[in-house]
């Protein structure tokens, strides 16, 4: 059964002088335990689709279903807190919070208490391959690979079923990029999560269970 289903979704926004149609009748579905890649040229609507899957906005027409329930009917703040996590190309860590505090942030939103949240955060950092010494460091002192691993650990902190990653290796060298992809693959195949990744990298796309191609706001399987 699909954990996420996109049905005839259209999305547009008003720029200064015109309406920009970003997605046109997009339909697709995503299942637990699989690694999905969405590929396409820049401006094809990949990131917008990911953002809609994350519940950051609602489609102009059509619908997106999470476990059979329309996102229009769900509390989308709670959906983002507990059901879905996003990893960004630019990491988007809080610059003045250290690694541990960044990972704890989603847990604080879910009312998990101090010591318990800190312990869980430490375990998550170990899981993504980061040493104890990184815990008190600010993002500015970390490498790109380290920052992305912290972002992944933060994405896992809410125990979300769905992990969305927008070009997670875009700012990393090949070695770090491969390590990140391995972690994401393990989350899908070993932990049974639904991992959806946007990428330009053919090698990464080649490792996916399903590849969707975005072209001019439309989706091909």
């Amino acid at each position: 059964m699909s954990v996420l289903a996109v049905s005839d979704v259209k999305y547009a926004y008003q720029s200064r002088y015109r309406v920009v149609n970003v997605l046109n009748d997009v339909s697709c579905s995503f299942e637990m335990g699989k690694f999905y890649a969405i590929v396409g040229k820049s401006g094809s609507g990949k990131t917008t689709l990911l953002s809609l899957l994350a519940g950051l906005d609602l489609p102009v027409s059509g619908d997106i279903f999470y476990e059979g329930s329309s996102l229009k009917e769900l509390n989308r703040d709670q959906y983002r807190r507990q059901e879905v996590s996003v990893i960004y190309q630019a990491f988007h860590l809080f610059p003045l919070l250290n690694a541990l505090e960044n990972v704890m942030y989603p847990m604080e939103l879910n009312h998990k208490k101090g010591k318990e949240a800190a312990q869980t955060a430490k375990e998550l950092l170990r899981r993504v391959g980061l040493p104890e010494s990184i815990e008190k460091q600010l993002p500015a002192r970390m490498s790109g690979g380290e920052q992305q691993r912290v972002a992944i650990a933060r994405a896992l902190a809410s125990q979300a079923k769905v992990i969305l990653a927008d070009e997670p290796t875009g700012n990393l060298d090949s070695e770090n990029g491969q390590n990140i992809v391995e972690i994401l693959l393990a989350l899908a195949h070993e932990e049974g999560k639904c991992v959806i990744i946007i990428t330009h990298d053919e090698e990464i796309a080649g490792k996916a269970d399903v590849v969707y191609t975005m072209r001019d706001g439309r989706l091909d399987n």
Partner: protein
Amino acid sequence: MTALKKAWRSVLRHRGKTLTALAVSVSLSLFLCLFAGNLEQNRAEWNRLSDGADIRIQITSSNGQQKTGLLIDDDRLEKIEATGLAERGLYTARALFTDSEDQEEDVRSPHFNGHILAAYTADTPLTEAGEDNISYFSGYDSSLFGGSEAVCLLQEDFLNSRGLQPGDSYHVRLNTLKEGGEVYPAGEAEFKIAGTFRESGSGFANAVAVCSYDTLKAALSQFNLHIWPSSAWLKVKDPTQLNRIKEAMKEANITSVLPQAYLFSTQGSAAVINDRKFILRAEPLERNIRLLQSLYPLFFAAVAVIAFLVSYLLAQSRRDEIAVCRSLGESRTGVFLQFFWESTVVCLSGAVLGFGAAALLSGISPGMLALPLLGYLAAYLLGAAAAILLLNRTNVIQVLTTLD
């Protein structure tokens, strides 16, 4: 972690932004404090001026030259008193009386020789002649001049010539003055002798009997006759209401003095007010107070606008942080509260520092600044809340994809 804890953490970690906002808050609150303090000092000076002012309305002849021997319409004085803005100073009036010892009682007769009954609203004319001049009968004192009891004081020699004693009843035939100065018979009246005096004070040097103004007024009203005070001055209760008092005097047909008038009336139709010194000091103060008061709302509006701009710019610089918070599932309310608490911490800290500094520098009592402080906090937080609400509408997708 509560929004407040997150806010506190954020305030401590965004040192540069916090210090900037704090500097703005301190400056605004310091300026407001000095402004408010200036206004309060002006008001305090105004109150001191008003409380200490001894302003009198002296009723005079129309050319202002004569203050006694007038024929004042008592109704005019009552009209001014009725406003509540002025109270009796000293009114004096007189009547003529005869008793059983007198042979001629007809006022129209050329041989009429009535005795003077002087009436006062206070014992001032008598005490001016000397403290030991008056001797009150048991149970009476100077307070009788504030009442309307039918009592009187008799001159000692006159008392002895009539074989009377303090405490006796004294029957007289009263005559009063009519409008125009004509003596007019009133009727019989009875007074209790409440004491004696050796000689009366100025104004009624030949008076052999003295009573309170209201006693004579009551006695004459029995015969439907009016009292015509011969001199009067009133004390202004509230100098800040001088204009209203002058309006009331106009309505009572008491005008300004006409010093150049060749012909003048002794009907007590003019008045002199010793308000010049007060006005010279009060007018600039009043102008200052009005100006500062008119600027007050503008200042609070300026605080709100500045707070809006500062909060907007500071939150704008953390727009990506807001977008990330929202993408992680923080609600709009949670984001609003966190940033609002940050503004509150900065605003309160700035206010304490600013107001504390101003109180030290200017010596203004902190109690005077409570209301301005509350107004400042309200204006600042209103501006900050508006800015945060506006930024909370940020399109998260656009921000995050732009950054990417």
